[in-house]
């Protein structure tokens, strides 16, 4: 599948490049733009990022694989990230994680058959004081209990 940036996104890319003395440092932002446009970062997207920033494909691959927030395969429309690190764990983070796993019948990294949900066990998200938490796409949901999780998932199904 060919990948090319939309004209608006090319403008955004040029703006980001202007923040730095060279092109390469824009790579993290450009990968986010690619992910936003494509839903995930395909190899074709990496090739295009490499071309736009005059970097090698290997360099791009190296960066995509280093950082956890770049998706190397498609995720669900709603990407659920459950923190199970210490502060969350002490407040039932694993109960929430196991519950979501069971409810959606997927494992860590899995996507539901209808492509609506995907699940990821994540490290501390900076919500330790409002634990347990779950991030859905870019939004944080905090101070959660199982009931609320159920309600949130049900409401997303109808969105």
């Amino acid at each position, binding site marked *: 599948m060919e990948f090319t940036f939309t004209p608006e996104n090319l403008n955004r890319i040029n703006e980001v490049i202007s*923040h*730095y*003395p*060279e092109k*390469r*440092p*824009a*790579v*993290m*932002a450009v*990968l*986010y733009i690619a992910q936003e446009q494509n839903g995930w970062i395909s190899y074709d997207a990496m090739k295009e990022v490499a071309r736009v*920033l005059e*970097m090698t494909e290997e360099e791009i691959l*190296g*960066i995509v694989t*280093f*950082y*956890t*927030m*770049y998706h190397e395969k498609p995720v669900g429309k709603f990407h659920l990230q459950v923190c*199970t*690190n*210490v*502060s969350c*764990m*002490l*407040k039932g983070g694993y109960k929430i994680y196991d519950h979501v796993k069971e409810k959606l019948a997927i494992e860590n990294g899995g996507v539901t058959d209808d492509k609506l949900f995907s699940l990821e066990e*994540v*490290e*501390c*998200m*900076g*919500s*330790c*004081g*409002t*634990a347990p938490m779950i*991030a859905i796409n*870019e*939004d*944080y949901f905090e101070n959660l209990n199982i009931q609320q999780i159920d309600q949130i998932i049900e409401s997303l199904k109808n969105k």
Partner: protein
Amino acid sequence: MMEKIVLPDIKDLHLIDVYIQNGGYSALKKAYTLTPDDIIDQVKKSGLRGRGGAAFSAGLKWSFMPKSTNKPKYLCINGDESEPGSFKDRQILEFNPHQLIEGTLIEAYAIQANAAYIYIRGEYHKWIKLLEKALADAYEYGFVGDKMKEKFGGSYSVNIYVHKGAGAYICGEESALMNSIEGKRGYPRVKPPFPAQNGLWGCPTTINNVETVANVPPIINKGWEWFSKIGEPKHPGTILYGLSGHINKPGIYELPSGTLLTDLIYNYGGGVPGDKKILCIIPGGSSMPPLRGDKLEGIKMDAESLKAAGTSIGTAGVIVMDEDTDLVKVLARIAKFYYHESCGQCTPCREGTGWMLKLLNRIAKGEGSTHDLDLLISVASNIEGNTICALGEAAAWPVRFMITRFRDYFESRVSKEVILPVANKVHSMRHTEFPLAPIKD
């Protein structure tokens, strides 16, 4: 009423007009009437120490920047905030972003930076947006960028850019952070050379934590003497203490340095749910050596006092664990984190974190032996001091100190089986001072 410096209780302070009405950006104006050296001197005298983990003197760090150089200079503000138990910088981004921007501008001027980058962890989408909004307003008002010259009538101007991370704890380490800004994998660099000599793009660079920088405007406004008298003289100012885990009122509390740990937990945090006893505390984010719950009396929360108590202030994110906590599982979870976040450059860290996780998982399953406890301490001790960056220590400390300080607890979770050393044919001729381990029943 205790004075709050970084997060004052002022409604809508995140709005630029409210911030200005409350004296905002006046420190910047004052700073431009001083020389960069004056500012560095004042910050040095104020005693302000870094809030990102190592508690290093901020003014001293700034003074390391070379004065005569043809190279551009850079400032990096560290908002990676990924240390488990830490969630303070996020509050500044949300409730007082302009004080961070103002502090950044003052520091940039003091070190004569050509550009400043605020690095924020990628997961903080919402807080990045809030900061970007505040920054756009500051640009519009002429506090940042080209318009500064006109506004302040000087020759100095600087741009501030937000750089979004993408999920890697190691990028909070200052040299990894610079590599990440440069558009590379976030690998820590060997030091020396230090950032002040050889930082971003090989140019002189200073890195400070978000909270550290947010303390700068009040210091310039009210003077270093005022600041140096707050809290503990050797680590003055207020600290954004975090409370999480088994605590009735979790959250961020801005209090003078040197606040008693027990005060923090019982008076401010409302104590432990169900009035349970405390088994264990981690005082400054998951990397710091844990303390026994029965030994918290009299411990003050500042860098020197915590050092004396056998631990470290770190990010001041206090994690409380009650008497029913499964410490083995907690330690295994901590080990999993460092195993996951090790960048893999150094063998002791890359391999050691994996071995510690395996051993702890075995103990958690009830299949461990006393030997495993000693092996864990040995693996941890062999990581410490043998790596490029301090993630090695961050991974080793919790394991080594949790096991030594809770030896009784861990002993009760493993079998007493003694694994006899096996004679090694090849080395058996070599003299050894170690006798066989005595057999206990």
